[in-house]
């Protein structure tokens, strides 16, 4: 056995030595290499978390960490089945809530939130959750969301009765399950409140006390009609609260800074002649950048029932004037239609665009110029999130 190993080693070394001797000007052979573990570079606002739901094998979801400047995948975290993702406000931890079974797709079921260290991309702890976590294909920042100070994590449930589990992060425990009366999502607002969206077109806001239990609740005025023009679940956070967009393209900006939600005047991304023919659609059809105060919308031509269709264009709007400032066509034939958008948070932002062919394009969000294209990254990039 030892001789055999020696033989293999000699076979690997001798030919190189013989070759070097035969050709006098050949450079020195390469030095032996050592295996190591790459360390993540310094975080950049141009990074993004890309959620791949692995649609054809759903129990294998993952979160890619991607550097839009370098056009490079930096690492990956496991997201199990119907996973939700949230990053802590201090940026040190990612919370990944997911379903696992002991035998792959069957066996004993576990609902768990794993706390990943964002320096190492390794889980450093976990918390078992009640087996009622909401498993929802429409992925938003508000299926799982931290309070602004990082004290609580709100995890949405559906059995199909809807509720929210309140997680005390420092104590690593579930303090309470708050019944949300058929309303869904947990949109956080300071200090310790979350807001859910209801079938009757109103918002339910629940305040949480210091012990992690419900302190009070209030229901807003009605701001949309689900029969006439429902708002997408996929909304975007804003400095004051949250912005929704409707199936027909109306924009509902909501201020959540006070005790009661306040609704800004409605505006639309479509003209009267475009209405009903050009529509928002996809999986993550709306993005927003604060420094530029610009909205980005995935748009397609289609009729009723087309609200999940990918977009042939990205429309850009000024958040103050509500004027359309650009239309950026997608190369649909080459890369597929757009299904998800994410604008980075900085004042020279990138716009990440994922397509229905699981291509990823990184654009200059000010000009629309394509900076980088991944022809295929993973299987189904349906949601992206800022670090």
């Amino acid at each position: 056995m030892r001789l055999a190993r020696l033989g293999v080693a000699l076979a690997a070394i001798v030919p190189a030595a013989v070759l070097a001797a035969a050709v006098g000007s050949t450079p020195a052979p390469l030095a032996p290499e050592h295996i190591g573990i790459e360390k993540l570079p310094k975080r950049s606002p141009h990074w993004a978390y890309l959620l791949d739901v692995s649609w054809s094998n759903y129990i294998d979801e993952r979160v890619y960490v991607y550097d839009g400047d370098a056009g490079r995948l930096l690492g990956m975290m496991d997201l199990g089945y119907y996973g939700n993702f949230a990053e802590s406000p201090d940026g040190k931890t990612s919370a990944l809530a997911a379903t696992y079974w002991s035998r792959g797709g069957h066996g004993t079921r576990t609902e768990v939130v794993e706390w990943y260290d964002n320096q190492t991309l390794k889980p450093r702890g976990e918390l078992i959750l009640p087996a009622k976590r909401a498993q929802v294909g429409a992925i938003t920042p508000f299926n799982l969301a931290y309070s602004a100070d990082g004290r609580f994590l709100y995890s949405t449930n559906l059995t199909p009765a809807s509720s929210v589990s309140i997680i005390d992060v420092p104590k690593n425990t579930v303090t309470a399950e708050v019944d949300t009366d058929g309303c869904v999502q947990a949109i956080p607002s300071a200090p310790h409140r979350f807001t859910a969206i209801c079938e009757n077109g109103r918002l339910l806001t629940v305040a949480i006390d210091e012990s992690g239990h419900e302190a009070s609740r209030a229901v807003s005025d009605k701001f949309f009609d689900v029969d006439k023009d429902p708002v997408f679940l996929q909304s975007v956070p804003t400095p004051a609260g949250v912005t929704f967009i409707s199936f027909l393209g109306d924009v509902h900006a909501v201020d959540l800074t006070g005790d009661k939600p306040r609704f800004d005047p409605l505006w639309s991304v479509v003209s009267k002649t475009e209405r009903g023919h050009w529509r928002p659609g996809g999986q993550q059809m709306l993005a927003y950048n604060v420094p530029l105060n610009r909205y980005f919308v995935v748009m397609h031509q289609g009729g009723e029932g087309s609200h999940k269709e990918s977009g042939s264009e990205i429309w850009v709007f000024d958040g103050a004037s509500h004027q359309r400032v650009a239309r950026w066509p997608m190369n649909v034939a080459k890369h597929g239609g757009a299904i998800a958008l994410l604008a980075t948070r900085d004042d020279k932002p990138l716009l990440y665009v994922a397509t229905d062919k699981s291509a990823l394009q990184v654009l200059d969000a000010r000009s629309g110029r394509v900076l980088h294209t991944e022809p295929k990254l993973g299987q189904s990039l349906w949601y992206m999130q800022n670090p």
Partner: protein
Amino acid sequence: MQARFDRLVELASRSVARRSSRRGFLGTFAMAITGVAALPLLPVRRGSVAEAAELPAKPTGAAGKEAGAPTKPKIVTDPSSCEYWKYCAIDGFLCACCGGTSTTCPPGTEPSPITWIGTCQNPTDGRDYLVSYNDCCGRTTCGACTCVRNEGEKPMYRMSLNNDVNWCMANDNPNYHCSVSVILGVAEK
């Protein structure tokens, strides 16, 4: 199976009723119905009808898919085709491509007792039918015949008409595999 489902609906109904308003209870209860006997309670309303009031009467300008002269659509009778009429509000994998049919789950899987509802027009007889979209559960996603159609589909806050949530959620094993479409009856005008 029926007895188990009855218990599930009863338990869910009691649980929700204890903690919810009447309106919230009705909304949640409606989505847990699969029986034809309960049809009058179903909150089905065709989205196209509802949205029509919001649209310009005679749209001009950009040409959407709805624009242009109407053409007689080809009738698709293959249940492994996404164009099959019963699939008008389905989002998932067709069980007919996964070892089942349009109404049966593949071997080794279990149907979901709770569902979402669509209203689809049968091009052969011109009638609108209420269709229950049950998921088949217990294996990972089938991966064959993805079909995404969303006529009348609504976001998950109107759960009975939503196809984004995992309708295997109440199964012993909530692993989604594929979807079937089961006619409940003719939709009332």
